[in-house]
């Protein structure tokens, strides 16, 4: 860092930014290997939900996400506007 930077710069050093970014991306990519089951699980969840509720295939999404120290499994189901009656068992 030069004389001028020293007085002007309170900005984060670029190496620090690099390290923070890498921390996040590596944590994400290391857990990615364990997420291979997601599509299969999505299919199975869909089958279960469709048994009881009238939802379309593309109206359901499953996400595994890292938030800080937690892993969050997120299940989103969008229902049609008009609530149809559940299919007969």
């Amino acid at each position, binding site marked *: 860092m*030069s004389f*001028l930077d020293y007085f002007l710069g309170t900005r984060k050093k670029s*190496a620090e930014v*690099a390290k923070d970014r*890498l*921390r996040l991306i590596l944590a994400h*990519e290391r857990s990615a290997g364990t997420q291979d089951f997601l599509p299969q699980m999505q299919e199975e969840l869909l089958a279960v939900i469709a048994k009881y509720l009238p939802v379309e295939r593309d109206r359901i999404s499953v996400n595994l996400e890292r938030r800080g120290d937690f892993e969050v499994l997120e299940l989103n189901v969008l229902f049609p506007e008009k609530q149809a009656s559940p299919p007969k068992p």
Partner: protein
Amino acid sequence: MARIIVVTSGKGGVGKTTTSAAFASGLALRNFRTVVIDFDVGLRNLDLVMGCERRVVYDLINVIQGEARLQQALIRDRQLEQLYILPTSQTRDKEALTAEGVAAIMEELQKDFDYIVCDSPAGIETGALRALYHADEAIVVTNPEVSSVRDSDRIIGILQARSKRAETGDSPVKEHLLLTRYAPRRVQSGEMLSVEDVQELLRTPLLGVIPESETILQASNQGIPAIHMKGTDVAQAYEDAIARFLGEDRPLRFTQPEKQSLFKRLFGG
């Protein structure tokens, strides 16, 4: 039985070939019978870095396809009697690098050598997978730079999942981190990831730090492995790395900036 070492990185241009040449030469200097194999099919470079390009007659692919015997393809190093180079093909494509072919060559070489050094191509495809498959130890060459660190992490994952040791449930490949093209001054000024940063991110034992140096270009210009550039920082850094690889204790060198003038320090440079 030879130990098989893969020099790998995921990313290209980080110093794998430079390191393979220096490492293989360093092992031979220590009197180990060593062979260094170029796995970068189609982009032959190791022969140039080793300075034996005009003596290439047969190559790895010729041997795999039964067009030449292994003994015919091995080139003896100009300076070191214990060192051989197995060049790759410049014209064939990497699909010629069959799993069975590579396995047969490894088996034969293991009888005659102490160390087999495999110079991996970049990427995570066939060539890179073949180069790492038989490894007992891996030197993960990394530059202090975001994409290189990420790719190294990826290749470490692949070593742990797709090497022969992983597939057969044997003890895992022993991984070593080699940080190359390191510029201490830029680290000090906060513009480059430090050796501690990279180690913390990759969680892999450090084998050494090779400084960014003009010597490397002078060496490759002449086809002389960097370890022969007597008295230079890179030669010493590679020697240290080899000593550590062989279990010796060596303090880190060349990771602090050299003294600089007050003028430069004040006004940057």
